């Protein structure tokens, strides 16, 4: 069994492809995480060489066009443990066939890539709706997210074009990434520090109005929490105002 260890980047996968073709071998696993080797296992560390990566990239474009590249590396955002192996296998097959094979869905690698990419796209779409901004005292909008996949770069442009001239921060708590928008451009940085957020004085009022709205728009005769759970999985709710505890209950009937 052959295992390639690479960084979880485009260059890593491209260099792994080069290694595989020069050594005339096909690795069983390509991974970026710690791999527990069994004793019939050969583990190779793939070294990054930008020149080699560029060469392989050109080869891929020749085989399957630019769209092949974007389909393949879109999947790097996934939390799927097999993503590197899948991307590698699809790329390898396309290079061998000199053809774009990604829609040949009867091949398990192709359908895996399709599903990994669908999961990423679906989550990005969902979070465009589920993300909640809070107004901070200095007037900057702040949102916490904890998505399964690394989708911050897919959703930030949406908010930038929706709220022109607004300054906002989107904080991925799982990956310690913060995407900042100063009203003009986006910048993502990694930070391990906890952010201290001081909310604007109006914020509480609007959060509580939203909770009021949320509670009263439900049709009680149609109670169907199962359907709610499928459409809005519980893991997203911890960052959503309407699922936070109610501060002051309204006595009104």
């Amino acid at each position, binding site marked *: 069994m052959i295992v390639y260890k690479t960084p979880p980047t485009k260059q890593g996968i491209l260099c792994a492809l080069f290694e595989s073709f020069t050594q005339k071998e096909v690795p069983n696993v390509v991974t970026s995480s710690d791999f527990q080797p069994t004793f019939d296992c050969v583990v190779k560390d793939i070294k990054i060489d930008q020149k080699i990566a560029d060469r392989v990239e050109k080869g891929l474009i020749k085989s399957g066009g630019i769209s092949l590249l974007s389909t393949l590396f879109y999947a790097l955002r996934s939390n799927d443990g097999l993503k590197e192996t899948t991307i590698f296998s699809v790329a390898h097959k396309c290079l061998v066939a000199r053809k774009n*094979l990604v829609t040949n869905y009867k091949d398990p690698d192709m359908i895996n890539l399709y599903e990994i990419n669908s999961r990423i796209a679906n989550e990005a779409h969902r979070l*465009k709706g*589920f993300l909640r901004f809070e107004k901070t005292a200095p007037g900057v909008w702040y949102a916490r997210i904890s998505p399964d996949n690394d989708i911050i770069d897919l959703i930030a442009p949406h908010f930038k074009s929706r709220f022109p001239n607004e300054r906002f921060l989107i904080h991925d708590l799982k990956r310690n990434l913060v995407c900042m928008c100063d009203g003009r451009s986006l910048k993502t940085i990694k930070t391990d520090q906890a952010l201290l957020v001081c909310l604007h004085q109006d914020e509480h009022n609007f959060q*509580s109005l939203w909770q009021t709205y*949320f509670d009263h728009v439900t049709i009680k005769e*149609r109670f169907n929490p199962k*359907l709610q759970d499928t459409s809005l999985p519980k893991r997203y709710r911890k960052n959503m105002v309407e699922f936070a505890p109610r501060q002051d209950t309204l006595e009104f009937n």
Partner: protein
Amino acid sequence: MLDAKRLTILTESAKYDVSCSSSGSSRSSRGGIGNTYAAGICHSFTQDGRCISLLKILLSNQCVYDCLYCVNRRSNDVPRATATPDEICQLVMEFYKRNYIEGLFLSSAVFKNADYTMELLLETVVRLRKLYGFRGYIHLKGIPGADSLLLNRAAHYADRMSFNIELPSEKSLKLLAPQKSKKAILAPMGAMAEEYKIARQEKNKAVLPAGQTTQMIVGASSETDGQIIRLSQALYDRYSLKRVYYSSYVPANNQTSLLPTTPVGLLREHRLYQADWLLRFYGFSAEEIIGSEQNLDPALDPKCAWALRNMGLFPVEVNTAPPEVLLRVPGIGFKSASKICHARRFSKLDFDDLKKMRVVLKRAMHFITCGGKFYGQESLPAVRTLLTLNEMPNTMEQLSMFSSPDINLSVLGGEL
């Protein structure tokens, strides 16, 4: 600013309108705040499983009408409230900036008269667009009977407008909503459709970019599903509506002998939506789906039912059937059909390949061949039984001494 108490009243009064979508319009934020996204975005889901996309609210629930099915009818003893146009605008902006909503769904009870109400609705929308620079989604309810100049002006500011048909026939309207008439509802709808057509011919995308919709209450009156689906088809054809919404009747008022006392099952509404999808996306006609005096079969989805009536057209060969024929196979939808059409360009597909492609074959297997081979059941009654069982997994449980099958069925029908 709108307080919690009035927000509660105006929300409770608006919630029975089922239209929720924020789709069909694509506009940038240029020169303002907010944009629209063609596919629409759901922002939350409530405990009834419905999505929240727009802030669905009434300007006022003080109504001069007395429609029997409606929670806001004049003779109902419910708390009443009215908001000012500016209060609505402020709330929309604050909610929108926090990404709670995709826009506004504004409606109102008819207070004083239709024109006065429509004027206030229009004022709200114009204020939101011009004063607040809001470029997000606006769905505006048209008030039937309001002056056509007001309605036409509103069409230049809203993404989508809707006039609710409410009841699927003139007879039911007379009985349950005596102050409304079919003509008063259809006339503005037709005028809007005309406006929309002219604007499109002039390549003017600013007029109702997301078109018109309507809503019907199902189960409050005696129409069959066949009549309802025919009405929908006519609305799609003649008024180029984007969508017809169906809303199962929920008793919101004190009982009257003219209306059912229990909520109508959700299953009927579900089947109607399935049939509606067949009309809009799968190239079916109302006549194919159902006879005019019939109701949809609760045990089978309408596509399955159609296929079983037309077994002569099946099985179809997955390797050669054109996409529109694949779409008519029960269990194969857009995703599966697209996967099949892509994959078969590379090589012939057999039954195991379809499984590997994660095409759901439970129903489809009885209606397709793969490379000439058939894997389903030959006899029609056997297929029917299998498909019916597949449809209702919840009712198939081992009976215990204390379980009562009646209760299980009523749960499925949404009657509890």
